[in-house]
C-alpha cells in the first residue's frame, strides 16, 4: 500500500514570496491533516479536512495560509506572502473515517520550507 505522498520535498524562497505544497493521501482515507513542525518541536495542526470539507482550521493563519482539498482526495497548502517564521516542515497526514474510534494517522515525509 502506497503511503502519503508529498511534494516538493524541499523549498527555499525569499520572504514575501508565495509557495504551494501538494499532498496525496493514502487511497480511501477520507480525513486529511496538514501539520506544521518547527525545528525542535512537535507537529502542530494547521487544518483538517473530512472528504473535501474543512473540519478544523482554527490554528491556520488565514491572512496568509490557505488550503483546499478538491474532490476529497489531493490537497494543496499555500502560503502567500511567506514570512521568516514560516520556515518549518509541513507534514500531511491521512486517516480513515472512524466509527467513534481514533484512527491511526499516517504521515507523509513532509516538505521542508526555508524562508530567507
Amino acid at each position: 500500500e502506497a503511503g502519503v505522498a508529498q511534494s516538493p520535498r524541499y523549498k527555499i524562497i525569499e520572504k514575501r514570496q508565495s509557495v504551494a505544497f501538494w499532498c496525496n493521501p493514502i487511497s480511501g482515507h477520507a480525513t486529511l491533516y496538514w501539520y506544521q513542525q518547527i525545528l525542535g518541536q512537535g507537529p502542530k495542526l494547521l487544518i483538517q479536512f473530512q472528504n473535501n470539507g474543512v473540519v478544523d482550521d482554527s490554528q491556520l493563519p488565514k491572512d496568509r495560509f490557505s488550503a483546499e482539498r478538491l474532490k476529497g482526495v489531493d490537497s494543496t497548502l499555500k502560503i502567500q506572502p511567506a514570512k521568516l517564521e514560516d520556515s518549518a516542515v509541513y507534514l500531511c497526514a491521512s486517516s480513515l473515517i472512524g466509527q467513534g474510534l481514533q484512527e491511526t494517522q499516517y504521515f507523509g515525509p513532509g516538505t521542508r520550507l526555508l524562508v530567507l
Partner: protein
Amino acid sequence: QQQVKQSPQSLIVQKGGISIINCAYENTAFDYFPWYQQFPGKGPALLIAIRPDVSEKKEGRFTISFNKSAKQFSLHIMDSQPGDSATYFCAASMRGGNTPLVFGKGTRLSVIA
C-alpha cells in the same frame, strides 16, 4: 489545557539499556495516547498507542504505562538498540474519532554501543 508536556528533551542510553520517556497532560477529555517515532528526513510513524481503560500496553520491546489519576503516560524501550535512535513524540487526542493530535515537543534518543 491543550498541552502535552514531554521530558526529557534528549536522552542517551547504552545499547541494551532501558529508555524511558515521560509525558503529562491536563485535558481530561483526551482519551487516546499514541507515541510516534520520527527519523531524520521522515514523517512521524505510529509506534504504539493506548487508551485510558488500560494501565499498560506492550508491543515487543515497547511498553506504554498509563496513570490516569496522575494524568501521565510513559514509553519504555527495553533492550534499546542503535536503530532505535530517533526522535519520539507523545501525543493525545479527544473523543469522537479522527480528531487532531496534540503533540509533545519530542525527545531525541541516542543509543550508543
